[in-house]
């Protein structure tokens, strides 16, 4: 007679192999791909390793800002935080919810803020000194449009972004956001990024232009990873490393 019992009962149901149908904006409109539980488990494992590189460890706190339709990566990141035994707070990534981000940040003093959006920063800028707020935060993983704003204020922000159905996450070397090479292929064509499913993915996704300006760096990162790295351009300017 507890919620745990309810979930134990639910565990007896036959779940389909599919967890999500991921819809994402591409250059030629909305596209979709499927995400299975097995893939979600591998995505979680990859996110765990990336967050561990940022020093996230048991006993720390994180603040996650995301939207309701971002569960395909949110689920994996939450799974990673749980695996690392990091307690997370959660707020919306939409600008109007900046107040909760502010209160979570002030009261919980998170070691990491993940998924920070430009809209949240815009909301915060009217009521807080954004630089003062985030400079003491050890790890700030922000979306592409938020990164230059933060870096201009002296915040050592790293890139964090959905890339179609994939997740791109920069390591502390800040030399581009890693994409899991075992699961995805990323490429650059005419200055824009594209993504394709790797052979392991159940749902085939041919090379799909995303309409996102940027380029891809290959070769071993200083962190040791062989994953390709994407470098986004924001407002026509490349988000260069350590800028």
């Amino acid at each position, binding site marked *: *007679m507890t*919620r745990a*019992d309810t*979930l134990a009962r639910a565990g007896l*149901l036959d779940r389909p192999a599919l*967890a999500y149908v991921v819809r994402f904006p591409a250059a030629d409109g909305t596209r979709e791909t499927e995400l299975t539980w097995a893939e979600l488990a591998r995505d979680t494992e990859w996110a765990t390793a990336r967050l561990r590189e940022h020093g996230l460890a048991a006993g720390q706190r994180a603040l996650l800002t995301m939207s309701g339709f971002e569960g395909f990566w*949110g689920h994996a990141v939450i799974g990673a935080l749980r695996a690392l035994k990091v*307690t997370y707070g959660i707020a919306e990534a939409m600008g109007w919810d900046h107040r909760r981000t502010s209160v*979570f940040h002030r009261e*919980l003093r998170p070691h990491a803020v993940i998924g920070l959006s430009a809209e949240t920063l815009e909301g915060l800028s009217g009521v807080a000194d954004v630089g003062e707020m985030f400079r003491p935060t050890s790890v700030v993983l922000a979306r592409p449009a938020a990164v230059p704003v933060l870096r201009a204020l002296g915040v050592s922000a790293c890139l964090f972004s959905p890339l179609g159905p994939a997740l791109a996450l920069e390591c502390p070397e800040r030399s581009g956001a890693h994409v899991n090479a075992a699961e995805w292929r990323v490429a650059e064509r005419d200055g824009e990024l594209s993504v394709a499913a790797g052979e392991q993915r159940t749902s085939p996704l041919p090379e799909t232009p995303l309409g996102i300006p940027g380029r891809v760096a290959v070769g071993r990162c200083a962190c040791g990873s062989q994953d390709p790295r994407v470098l986004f351009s924001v407002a026509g300017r490349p988000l260069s490393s350590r800028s």
Partner: protein
Amino acid sequence: MVGDRDTADRYFEPQVETMPRRRLRARQEERVLELVGYAYANSAFYRELWDGHGVHPRDIRSLADFRARVPFITKDMVRAYRARTGDPFGGLLCVPGEELTSVSSSSGTTGEPEFFAEIWQDAPPLVTAQVRDLWELGLRPGDRVLSPPGTFRNLMDPGYQALGAVVIEVDTWMGRMHEVVEAMRTYRPAYLQMMYPQMVELEHLAEKTDLKEAFSSLKGASCAGQPLSRKMRERIRDDWGIDVYEYTSAADTGTAWECREHDGFHLWEDTVFAECVEVGEDGWRDVPEGDLGELVATDLDNRAAPLIRYRSEDLVRLSGETCGCGRTHARMWVAGRRGDETLVQGRSVVLRDVWQAVEDQPETVAGVFQIVRDRREVDELLLRVGYDPALTGDVDALAGRLGEAVRERTGVKPVLDMRTEEDLLKTMTSVAKFPRVVKR
């Protein structure tokens, strides 16, 4: 396959959901007695409060003792503790902070958001509390659901997925209803979580879109955040063909949903001990069953930061009578919030009356309005009302009609601040709530 076999079965946990009330009450007593000792030993807030009231767990040997001795708590008491000590959890936390899985919060529409400390394994607590309700609605393994508008009480997907549902990622927040309609046609989902602004937006789309056809795959949709008016509910059910299930907060201990009978909100009493009381300056008393009182709740399944005898400020009627669905857990009917009543030069004005007057005008049929006040007792009734510009030729004429309709319903001539619906809905600062009573 369990899911297939149980498709015709209405109850997800039949032995719990239809448990005789006598046994339910015995379980509650057992759980409450454990809880009192646990909270006293582990929560700084409860220890301080109960010591101040001369209450010790050894004195609490029955539910009657619990109700007679353990004091009520309020949101303001927890906020005061938080302000005094700097503890973000207001002293409620019963475990070391590092044992928490997650922290969600209230919407913060009426003040500083309060935190909810969470410990969980497979799905966050709030959505787990909804699993039985979603099963009652008809959700079954393999069904598709559209992703919810927000994450304000944590990611909801794991709850749907616990039932074997597949989540379709669609941005269902304000301004996206045309995409939602398109996704409904493409993916034929069985369930959709909605909030009030989406309903208003759909009302506009209804003119040019066959919503009944678009929503025909739904087994049900839920709506929370504020009660639907009778007119809106009829529109959703009759014109759009959606079986809409409203739900509300179970005093911050979980949620309470309508079942298919649509006759009151079921509290899951194995997770909450609910009381319906009237509190006055000289003490409190139980209100007779079916009469209006304040919902007081005690968390029975929360080892992180349980609420114990928490005054919700929700004015409800409570009944332990078995529902037409066969469930024995209590149902409640929500009349409003304590403090939402406004006194205009001594005359009582309640939201329901204003709402009906607003809904009766075709240009404001969506019922988008707010009472603007800095305190409960005011000299004039200031109403901010949202109108549909596509249906409004002359705003002044509408204001004249509306002002008179409000006067007829409430006895008070209002001062009207007319805005477009869109402008007014844009002031929302939560996916969950459109506040009806706001400060200037």
